[in-house]
C-alpha cells in the first residue's frame, strides 16, 4: 500500500485548514453518505484515541439562535438531530445558555445543546493514522504528482512526477483535485469541484477563557456559518467564511473578510474586542455541485473515487475509511486483518496534554509562544514523514504558530532547518 502526495508534506490541501471539531453529525443531511461517515468516524475516533495518545476535549456545542428567525429554525434542527440519532440534544433558554457561557453576548435568544461535539487536533490525528499505516507496512511518496495512468489486465500503471507505480487498486483521495485526477486518469468525472474558501481568525490564547463549548450558528443551505470555537492548542478562533472561487490553490486571506469575522466574533463574544489577533488562515473545501460526499467505485477498473469531502472530512475521516473498505471488499478483494497491528503514539500538541516541554532532556525551547522544543523539531525533521516545508513543520510541531509568528524564533529555526526544506527559510554565504 502506498500513499502518493503531490505536496512535500501531507495535509497540504483541503486538510490544512478546518475548525478542528469532531462532529456528531447532528445536522448532517439525513440518509446521506456524509452522515454515515461522520457517525462511524465519530465512534471509531472515540474507540482509538486513548490508545493512540490523541486528544479529545469533550466541550459540547451550542447552536445559538441570535434572532427570531434563527430561533424559529431551532425546532427543525432539533428534530433533525434526533432523527440522526443524536438523542442528547435539547432546546435551552437564553438564560440557561448564559449560565454555561457567561461571556456570550446577551442578545442570544435560545440554543440547542449538542453535548457530543468535541475538539480534536486536526493534524496530529491524520499524521497518526498515516504513521500507523507506515508502521504496518505501507509506504508514502511525497512531492509526487499523479499525471496519468493506464489500466491493463487488472493492473494500474500510474504515472507520477517521480516515476510510475504499479498497483491493483487505486483510491483517489485527491481532495481539491479529485475531479481532475478522475478526468486525467479515467477520462471521466462524475462531479465538478468549485473550491469554497474558508477564512479563519485566531485570537490570543487569553481569549480561550471566554468560552467553554463550541458556538455554532443556525446554518443556511450553503454553509454551516461562522463558528466560535476553542482549539486544543489553547486558542479561540472564529470562522469560516464561505466564498466560492475557481482557483484550487489560492487560499489567500483578505482584510475585509477577516475584519468581518472579527466583528462577528465580537458581536457574539464581546470580550474578544480587546484580544489581539494571533493568526489568520484560510483553507479551501472541495465543494461540488452535490450536497453529499461523492464516493463511488468503478469496480471494472479497480478504481474508487473519494470526492467532494467538503467540510466534515476530519470528523468523517475514519468513517470514510470504513466506507471505502466496504466498497473495496465488495469488489471481491480479500485481506485478512493484520494479526498484531502496530499502534503508534500520536504527537502531543494539545495544551492540556503531556507536551514535550514538560519532560526533561528536551534541549531548548525554540518557539517560545507555543513552547516547541528542539527535541520535537528534530524528531519532526526525520523519518518517512519528515517535514519538508515550514508549513509541514508547523502542522507537526506548532512552531511559529503563536502570537509572535516567528519574531523570536525565526533565526534559530532557520538554522535548525537548514538543509531540510525544499524552500529554505534563509540562505547563508556558505550554502551550496
Amino acid at each position, binding site marked *: 500500500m502506498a500513499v502518493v502526495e503531490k505536496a512535500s508534506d501531507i495535509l497540504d490541501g483541503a486538510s490544512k485548514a478546518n475548525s478542528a471539531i469532531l462532529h456528531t453529525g447532528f445536522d448532517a443531511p439525513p440518509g446521506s453518505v456524509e452522515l454515515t461517515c461522520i457517525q462511524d468516524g465519530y465512534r471509531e475516533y472515540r474507540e482509538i484515541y486513548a490508545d493512540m495518545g490523541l486528544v479529545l476535549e469533550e466541550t459540547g456545542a451550542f447552536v445559538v439562535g441570535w434572532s427570531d428567525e434563527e430561533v424559529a429554525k431551532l425546532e427543525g434542527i432539533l428534530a433533525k438531530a434526533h432523527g440522526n440519532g443524536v438523542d442528547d440534544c435539547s432546546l435551552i433558554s437564553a438564560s440557561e445558555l448564559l449560565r454555561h457561557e457567561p461571556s456570550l453576548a446577551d442578545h442570544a435568544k435560545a440554543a440547542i445543546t449538542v453535548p457530543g461535539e468535541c475538539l480534536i487536533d486536526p493534524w496530529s490525528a491524520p499524521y497518526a493514522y498515516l504513521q500507523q499505516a507506515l508502521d504496518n507496512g505501507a509506504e508514502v511518496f511525497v512531492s509526487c504528482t499523479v499525471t496519468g495512468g493506464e489500466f491493463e489486465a487488472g493492473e494500474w500503471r500510474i504515472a507520477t512526477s517521480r516515476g510510475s507505480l504499479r498497483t491493483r487498486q487505486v483510491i483517489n483521495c485527491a481532495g481539491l483535485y479529485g475531479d481532475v485526477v478522475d478526468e486525467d486518469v479515467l477520462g471521466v468525472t462524475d462531479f465538478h469541484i468549485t473550491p469554497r474558501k474558508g477564512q479563519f481568525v*485566531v485570537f*490570543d*490564547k*487569553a481569549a480561550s477563557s471566554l468560552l467553554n463549548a463550541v458556538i455554532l450558528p443556525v446554518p443556511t443551505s450553503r454553509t454551516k456559518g461562522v463558528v466560535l470555537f476553542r482549539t486544543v492548542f489553547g486558542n479561540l478562533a472564529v470562522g469560516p467564511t464561505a466564498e466560492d472561487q475557481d482557483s484550487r*490553490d*489560492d*487560499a*489567500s*486571506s*483578505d*482584510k*475585509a473578510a*477577516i*475584519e468581518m469575522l472579527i466583528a462577528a466574533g465580537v458581536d457574539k463574544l464581546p470580550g474578544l*474586542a*480587546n484580544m*489581539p*489577533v*494571533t*493568526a*489568520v*488562515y484560510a483553507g479551501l473545501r472541495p465543494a461540488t455541485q452535490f450536497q453529499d460526499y461523492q464516493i463511488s467505485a468503478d469496480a471494472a477498473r479497480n478504481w474508487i473515487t473519494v470526492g467532494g469531502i467538503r467540510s466534515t472530512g476530519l470528523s468523517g475521516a475514519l468513517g470514510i475509511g470504513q466506507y471505502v473498505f466496504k466498497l473495496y471488499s465488495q469488489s471481491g478483494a480479500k485481506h485478512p486483518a493484520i494479526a498484531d497491528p502496530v499502534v503508534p503514539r500520536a504527537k502531543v500538541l494539545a495544551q492540556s496534554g503531556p507536551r514535550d*516541554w*514538560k*519532560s*526533561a*532532556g*528536551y*534541549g*531548548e*525551547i525554540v518557539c*517560545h*509562544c507555543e*513552547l516547541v522544543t528542539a527535541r520535537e523539531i528534530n524528531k519532526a525533521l526525520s523519518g518517512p514523514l519528515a517535514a519538508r516545508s*515550514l508549513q509541514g513543520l508547523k502542522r507537526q510541531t506548532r512552531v511559529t504558530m503563536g*502570537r*509572535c*509568528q*516567528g*519574531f*523570536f524564533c*525565526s*533565526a*534559530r529555526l*532557520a*538554522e535548525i532547518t*537548514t538543509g531540510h526544506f525544499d*524552500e529554505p*527559510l*534563509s*540562505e*547563508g*554565504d556558505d550554502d551550496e
Partner: protein
Amino acid sequence: MMSNKIDVIIIGGGPSGLSAGVELKRAGVARVVVLEREPQAGGIPRHCGHPPFGMREFKWIYTGPQYARKLVKTAVEAGVEIRTLTSVVEALPGGKLLVTSDNGVEKISAQRVIYATGVRETPRSARIISGSRPLGVLNTGALQSMVYLKHRRPFKRPVIVGTELVSFSAIQTCRHMGIRPVAMIEQAARVTARWPVGLFPMLMRVPLHLNTRLVSIKGDKRVEAVEVENASRERRVIECDGVLLTGQFTPEATLARCGHLEIDAPSVGGSIRGSGGPVVDQYGRCSDPAYFAAGNLLRPVETAGWSWNEGRQVGRWVADDLAGDLAGDPLVTGENIHITIADPIIKFAMPQKISLPYKPERGMKHVQLRFTDSVKGTLVAEDGQGKVMWQCSLNTHRERRVLVPVAGLVSERSGGEIVFRVV
C-alpha cells in the same frame, strides 16, 4: 540551589531586567535571580549589530552585542544569578511561577517578581494584511537575529514597511548582509522616526514612498510582489522577494495576559487603546502587588538606555517595598488615583494608577503618553467631574513620547480619576 529562598525573580534578561537585578543587589537584597529563555541574556541588543548603545549607562558607545555582554557582566559581578534557557510557563498569584528548562518543570517562588519581558513587533497576522502567505514575510527582530546571530539572510530584495527608528536600523541590517531593499513604504504623510533619519533611505538608496499603504502580499511559495496603494487610491505592484514588517511594537505581555494580572487595553470610543502591558502604579507595581513590571513591557517602545534606567528605578522601588518602605500598598489602603484616556487619539497613558499616599521623592516622575496620529491642540487632564486640573499645548506625532509630571496631577488628591483628553 533553586530550593533556597529567592527574594526577587526577574523574568527577562534584557536591559531593564538586568539593571533591575543590579540595583536590587546594590540595595542589599540577598538573592536575585534572572530567568532568561534565550541561550544568552542581554535581550534585543544582542542582535542589533550596530551602535549606539550604552551612552546613558556606561558613558561609552557600544554596538548592541557589546552592550548586551556589558550588561550581563555588570549583573553577574553585582551578584545577580542568571538562569538562561529557562522559560516561565505560568505566573500564579503571590509570586509563584511554573518554569521549564532542560531539567523539566519546576515550581519556584519569590517575595517579589519583576516582569521585564520587553516588546516585539506586530506580525503580519495581527496587522491583517490581505494576500497569500508565502515565505519571506518577517519582522525586523527576526531579520536581525538571523543576520547578526546566524549570518543568514531570509531574502535579497525586500520591501520595508514602516518608518520607525527600527525601520532604519533594518536598512543597516540589510546592508550588513548584502540585502538590497527595493522600497520603503509608509502609510502616513511623514516619516515616523524623528528627523533627520527621514533622509536615511535616500542616503541608503532605498526609494521612500510616503502616503503608501500595503494592500496585499503576492507569491506562492515565496514572496513575489506586493501591491501598494497611494493617497489617490492608485494601486501598483512592486516586485520583491520579501516583506519586512517593521515596528508597531507591542509588549510581550503573554504571561501577564494569560495570568491573573490586569492588562491595559481599554476600549476608547470603540477602539482598543492602552499600552498592552500590565496596569501599573507609579512604582511599576501590578494589580497583584507581588508583581512589578519594568522596561518596554510597560509601554512600546523606548530605547535600551531608557529601559535600563527604568529597570534600575523599579529595582530600587522593589527593594524599598521588601524593606516595607513603599507607600500605598493597594491591598492595604485600597486608595489610588486611576489614570484613564477619553480620546482615541491618545494611544496610552502609563502608569495607569497612582497609589496613595503620593510621595514625590519616589516613583515615576511622569505619566508617559503616546498618540495614534499627528495631533495639535491642548492636552487636558481632568478629574472625574470634568474639572481641568492640568493642561498644556500639544503638537506631536505618532510614536512620540509625551511626558506629564505626576506631581502636577496628584497634588492634594485623595483618590478618584485623572482623565486625559485632547481639546
